[in-house]
């Protein structure tokens, strides 16, 4: 509302983020070292050792990049299959009265494939409506498992890449199993336990009761589709549904184990909601304070990982330079989104809506314009994808910010681990470009960057743009693509572009008017998520292996400094040029043109 208050909230957020970056970064240094000691050792070490014993993991043995990759792929496959089958057969599993009191049926194959891919890849794209599709068991096991494991996998891969940069003439980049186990046990679970209870104190639910039926204060009449005796919807001869009036005097209130799922959804930048409306729902995000903590949880690990990078490569200023580049891109996004949403929609204002209130369509009163715009920027900078307001109803430029954030490849803090390894790909590219400009062999922290490294980097970047743009182009001209849309005109195109940007970027937020649960949409978005995750990770691990094997060259007067403002500017420039130039034409056809049409008062 008043802008001073919004500035204070922004300052508070940035202050809190800065405050936790170093302590959490230092803690990550301890956890990501297989021999590292932490203050939780006394409690957790026995469980860690037992896990290694049961699973046959030798914590002393390190892996080369191929071994690391194979372990990662097998672990992802095992989890994905588990989730697929749980969803398909959720109505056949034991303990139905406890775990499926709503008697929800099994999920169809393509939606189950989509959801399994979605959670395995840390995307948490939701073509399902949580409260109406998934049993408690599916939520607790099928989904929560991946919230932890996909996050731990992301951090493990970032650690492997950082080790590759830090080491020289080395054959190995760490042990995947040890990284996953330690990150899960020492970082994710302890923080989530505490955060879950804090969120319950704000009003989040955590129980195993069936949904509660409340008798509302006032009964009212609503219009619903008529059903016959068998419960099938009735339609007229020309296929139009027949509507009847129905008196409503009850409200069915969702229950279930929500508070255990939400902290990891944020901390692990997963974003998959317990209920359909995600963090806009008053149970999933009861108060502005819970909103603040959830936003902080999203950026906590990505921000701390830049500190981990600095410490591990023994150049703290490099870590902060990467942080700084991310921060400037983040701040720019916040301002654009905030100002666009605060300015509101001139079409609605002409109809009599108070101009000072901004664009409140799809937003909650308790968060208001600023906290909604800030949340939208954070959740798409990081590949979280939780939403506390409906991005589909944002103003065109307010909706462009989330879309652009995802199209950078989710490197503005980014997903846990994924943000850092994505940004390091840009760092290598930036160093390469700097080398070309001055005509020297590019060096990154004492390592020569050679043709093989740049080829791997280009594979990563081309997977990103090619997958997003090809699938968008296909869906935009295909009947199945247009059938899923909720809006027409340029906004309809934006819904498609947003969907594939979100899936390839493993974000998971949506212009949610788009309806999936149809075989083409489910399959194309599932493939986008799998490409966006694994076709990036494999070349990145190859890069890690290659960098680890290189010889160290002593620094000289001509060595490019990977710190300070010059480096930050170069890095931001690389992200923007690669991001902007590739996606500019598509963005021009969607949100940009819609912005001008909105000001001209055009409706679709």
């Amino acid at each position, binding site marked *: 509302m008043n802008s001073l*208050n919004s500035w204070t*909230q922004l300052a508070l957020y940035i202050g809190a983020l800065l405050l936790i970056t170093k302590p959490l970064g230092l803690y990550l240094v301890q956890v990501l070292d297989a021999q590292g000691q932490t203050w939780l050792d006394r409690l957790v070490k026995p*469980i860690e050792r037992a896990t290694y014993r049961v*699973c046959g993991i030798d914590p002393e043995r390190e892996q080369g990049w191929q071994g690391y990759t*194979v*372990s990662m792929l097998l672990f992802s496959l*095992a*989890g994905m299959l588990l989730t697929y089958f749980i969803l398909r057969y959720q109505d056949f599993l034991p303990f139905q009265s406890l775990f499926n009191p709503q008697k929800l049926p099994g999920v169809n194959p393509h939606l189950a494939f989509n959801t399994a891919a979605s959670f395995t890849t840390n995307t948490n794209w939701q073509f399902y409506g949580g409260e*109406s599709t998934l049993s408690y068991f599916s939520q607790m096991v099928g989904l929560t498992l991946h919230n932890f*494991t996909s996050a731990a996998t992301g951090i493990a891969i970032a650690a492997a890449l950082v080790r590759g940069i830090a080491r020289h003439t080395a054959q190995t980049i760490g042990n995947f*199993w040890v990284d996953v186990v330690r990150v899960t046990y020492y970082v994710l679970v302890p923080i989530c336990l505490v955060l879950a*209870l804090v969120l*319950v104190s704000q*009003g*989040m*639910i*955590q*129980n*195993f*009761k069936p949904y*509660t039926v*409340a008798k509302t*204060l*006032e009964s009212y009449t609503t*219009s619903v*589709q008529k059903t016959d005796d068998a419960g099938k919807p009735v339609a007229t001869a020309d296929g139009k549904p027949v*509507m009847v009036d129905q008196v409503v005097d009850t*409200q*069915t*209130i969702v229950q279930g184990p929500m508070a*255990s799922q939400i902290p990891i959804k944020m901390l692990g930048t997963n974003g998959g909601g317990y209920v*359909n*409306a995600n963090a806009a*729902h*008053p*149970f999933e995000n009861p108060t*502005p*304070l819970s909103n*603040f903590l959830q936003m902080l949880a999203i950026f906590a690990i990505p921000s701390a990982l830049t500190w981990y990078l600095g410490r591990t490569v023994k150049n703290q200023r490099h870590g902060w330079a990467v942080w700084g580049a991310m921060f400037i891109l983040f701040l720019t996004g916040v301002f654009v989104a905030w100002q666009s949403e605060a300015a509101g929609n001139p*079409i*609605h204002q002409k*109809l*009599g809506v*108070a101009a000072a209130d901004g*664009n409140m*369509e*799809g937003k*909650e*009163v*308790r968060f*208001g314009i600023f*906290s909604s715009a800030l949340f939208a920027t954070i959740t798409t900078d990081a590949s979280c994808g939780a939403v506390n*307001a*409906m991005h*589909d*109803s944002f103003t065109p430029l307010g909706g462009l910010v989330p879309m652009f954030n995802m199209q950078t490849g989710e490197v503005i803090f980014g997903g846990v681990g994924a943000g850092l390894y994505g940004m390091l790909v840009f760092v290598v590219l930036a160093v390469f470009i700097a080398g070309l400009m001055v005509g020297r062999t590019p060096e990154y922290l004492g390592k020569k960057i050679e043709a093989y490294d740049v080829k791997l980097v280009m594979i990563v970047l081309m997977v990103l743009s090619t997958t997003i743009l090809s699938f968008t182009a296909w869906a935009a001209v295909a009947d199945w693509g247009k059938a899923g849309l909720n809006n027409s005109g340029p*906004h309809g195109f934006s819904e498609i572009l947003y969907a594939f940007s979100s899936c390839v970027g493993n974000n998971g937020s949506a212009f*949610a008017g788009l309806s999936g649960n149809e075989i083409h949409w489910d399959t194309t978005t599932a493939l986008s998520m799998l490409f966006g995750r694994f076709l990036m990770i494999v070349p990145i691990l190859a890069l890690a292996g290659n960098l680890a094997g290189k010889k160290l060259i002593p620094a000289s007067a001509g060595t490019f400094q990977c710190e300070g403002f010059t480096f930050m500017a170069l890095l931001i420039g690389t992200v923007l040029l690669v991001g902007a130039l590739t996606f500019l034409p598509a963005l021009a056809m969607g949100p940009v043109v819609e912005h001008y049409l909105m000001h001209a008062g055009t*409706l*679709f």
Partner: protein
Amino acid sequence: MKNFLAEFKTSLLLTLVLVVLLCGAYPLAVWAGAQVLFPAKANGSLLVDANGTVRGSALLAQNFSSDKYFQPRPSAAGTGFDATSSGGTNLGPTSAKLANGSHAKDASGKDVNDPGNFDGIKDLVAAYRASNGLTDNVPVPADAVTRSGSGLDPHISLANAQLQAPRVARARGLALAQIQPLIAQSTAGPDLGILGEPGVNVLLLNTALDRIPSGK
């Protein structure tokens, strides 16, 4: 190959171990802590009347349409205020339906029950002005004529509550001064004095209104 099989076995075993810990022990630990420390909140912040009947959740909006109650924001959850089907309209800024959507009429001008019926912002503004006795030049608070993201937003803005207060007072035969303290009581936020925006919880406010005897 032998190595590969060993790795495969490890992936399956670790998945099982993690299922037990993360999907079994962890949610149960949260459940136990939540039920001990914050039982009312962990079970949905339910409002129970004197007869022991659950009347709703303090966190979820219910529909109110009569003049004697404060009215919440319009809802796009299911057919409206359906707490098992949360969500927004997801209509974009240039949507004709969102701005001008209306109800089908028959020849005599009466509303027809049609699946395409939708209250556009234009109609919502007109209805809000009519029910609260506002003239055409008074800007309507944005929250009163837009649908929230969840469709279950329990709050309305302070401005919205103040514009509705005289209507509610009239319908109940109360003085405006009797209603003002209830509005203040039902106002939440900003948290810590800074975070978020203040809002009036409609269900709590209406519950409190029902407790005071009518002046009529």
